[in-house]
């Protein structure tokens, strides 16, 4: 296992510009601030349903998405706010979705678990554990088909995220085999935060210390590394992305990360100690990158950081404002967005119609 690489030797991430890294810092801080406000809104019952907070895992979404092109397809599970923001979804639209407003990315029909953003090639936000993994294979298939058969578009790589609990779903293994057999450019990224809800990974998945052997058993290149250090993510992940893109074949990554909050907003977290949580908070990914940028690169100082945080706070506040003041979907929207081609007599209880335009389109 190739853990943190030697600091002495030159790192791939050293070649990244200050602007890029500052952008990542901003993106991670945006997610954290956004999630803080999300939790507040949830506590105020402005947000309903299931709500899964991304705080703690920011480096993972930002670093991996930062390693691909803007038009590479991305798909994930229900813990999706981080991916949406890392993929440049407008925080306003993201927050409005959780408020169930017509101005949300899914017009209020999806909620926290269903962040979709077509202009940014984010294919959701999926609630059934593991169900997004065959979809990830399909997005890679389509990208390859467009490039190879239709002759449109270039070589792409699909990023498909799943939690450590999702590896126990048969769907994931079918997806791995299909990706390998069809040589599909999809990278399965396990956001290994050590828990499936309240179940520690060693209690839910066998041989958990060697998850990459699952990928390897399908002949898929599989690597594991620390997912809390964003530069480390880039160092290891970017080369895999290039390889999977060039050779149009799958990859498998086990990224160690940690969620600071409960599984969902209704989790008492009796299954872990405060010490354990603190241990990870001490390797916090934002503090970590900030330290590098301040003390090693010197491209930001305390004031700069304060200014950045202030600006982000204002941006998120604005997003909340936007959500607060946006209108709910009209009841007529119940029967819209069911069919692209609605026809008479499809239902005994109503006629399907076209809906109001999606705010992202």
């Amino acid at each position, binding site marked *: 296992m190739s853990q943190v690489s030697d600091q002495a030797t030159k790192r791939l991430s050293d070649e990244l510009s200050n602007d890029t890294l500052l952008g990542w810092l901003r993106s991670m801080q945006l997610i954290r601030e956004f999630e803080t406000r999300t939790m507040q809104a949830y506590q105020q019952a402005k947000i309903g349903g299931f709500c899964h907070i991304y705080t703690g895992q920011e480096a993972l979404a930002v670093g991996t998405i930062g390693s691909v092109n803007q038009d590479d397809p991305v798909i994930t599970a229900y813990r999706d706010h981080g991916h949406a923001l890392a993929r440049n979804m407008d925080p306003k639209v993201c927050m409005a979705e959780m408020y169930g407003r017509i101005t949300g990315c899914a017009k209020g*029909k999806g*909620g926290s678990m269903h962040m979709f953003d077509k202009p940014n090639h984010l294919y959701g936000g999926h609630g059934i554990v593991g*169900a997004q993994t065959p979809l990830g294979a399909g997005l890679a298939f389509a990208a390859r088909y467009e490039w190879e058969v239709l002759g449109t578009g270039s070589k792409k790589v699909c990023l498909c995220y799943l939690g450590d609990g999702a590896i*126990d779903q048969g769907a994931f293994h079918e997806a791995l085999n299909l990706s390998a057999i069809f040589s599909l450019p999809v990278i399965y990224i396990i956001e290994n935060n050590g828990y499936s809800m309240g179940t520690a990974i060693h209690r839910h998945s066998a041989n958990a210390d060697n998850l990459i052997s699952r990928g390897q058993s399908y002949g898929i290149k599989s690597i594991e590394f620390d997912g809390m250090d964003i530069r480390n993510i880039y160092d290891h992940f970017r080369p895999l992305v290039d390889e999977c893109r060039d050779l149009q074949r799958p990859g498998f990554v086990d990224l160690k990360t940690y969620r600071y909050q409960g599984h969902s907003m209704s989790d008492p977290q009796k299954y872990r100690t405060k010490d354990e949580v603190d241990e990870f908070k001490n390797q916090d990914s934002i503090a970590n990158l900030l330290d590098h940028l301040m003390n090693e690169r010197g491209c930001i100082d305390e004031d700069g950081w304060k200014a950045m945080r202030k600006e982000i706070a204002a941006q998120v506040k604005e997003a909340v404002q936007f959500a607060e003041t946006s209108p*709910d979907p009209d009841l007529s929207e119940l029967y819209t967005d069911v069919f692209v081609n609605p026809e008479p007599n499809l*239902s005994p209880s109503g006629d399907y119609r076209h809906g109001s335009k999606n705010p992202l389109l």
Partner: protein
Amino acid sequence: MTTTIEHPALDRTETMPTFLPEDQLPAREGDRVIQLREALREAMEEEMRRDERVFLLGEEVAQYNGAYKVSQGMLDEFGPKRIIDTPISENGFAGAAIAAAMAGLRPIVEFMSWSFSLVAADQILNNAPKMLYMSGGQWGCPIVFRGNDGANGQLGSTHSWCVEGLYSNVPGVKIAIPSNAYDAKGLLKTSIRDPDPVFFLESERMLGDKEHVPAEEYYIPFGRARLAREGDACTVVSFGRPVNFCLEAAEKLAGEGIHVDVLDMRTIRPLDIDSVLASVKKTNRLVVVDQSWPFGSPATEVITQVIENGFDWLDHQPVRVNTEDVPTPYAKGLEAAYIPNPGRIYDAIKSVVQS
């Protein structure tokens, strides 16, 4: 008092409780007020104490005490060999439990939500209901699958399934859908004792509902509806959570001098059509309320059976009230309009009794 069941598929003679008529069951009124989730827990605990072959498995049922705290404390009493946490592998553990049932155990499988049973559809629809038939009577499948069913927690399209709309089409299973804590305990105990596969559909929305639940043992038989409210203007048939919406609507109508029968079916397979027909014969009107989608729903089955057996008693065409025929929306307002809420039920009854 018990009766016994002998069958080659059973390793031994099984005792079944003798079911008392409705009026001999313990009183529904009383001061032992507990939550519906506690009633479910009591049913499981009582049966697990009675029969060591009974065990519970599912996601987060043990150390986490249940995602919805239904199994709270059961790990402490029964230990990890009988209260078992599973990985997120519904098809896998449902299938494993089915085989354990074939082999003579009495599994209770908790689906955190019935919405997650779709990944296990093959096991629960091909194996559980058909094993006895496929094996020519050699092996049955005495198992209970239970969990949350239905919308209204703003959980969105994939987490709000009413599986009775799908699964009730399949022969070989019994389906219980309680509408209150008292019935939940009595029906779940019967489900665990029954030697056939039972789909037991709970409502997360109702787990916190409080009412008097007797401490003593009691069993509610399958296929016996309860007349939850009496009247002569219309027969209102429902099951599960919407029964409570029907009672709300009925209350409002009573204020207008319109009194209706509200029948709580309790189980849809078996379906107590006799009670429905007896009521329709009296009221000549029928409204069926069902929280699954309308097309080919249990509501259409009730209507069809009434038409088949009581066509001439009807003075007005039967009306169904289902959830709206769209994927479940997240937005609070949309979801509230989506379910068969008291307002829609009220309107439906009105439309039937006024013409």
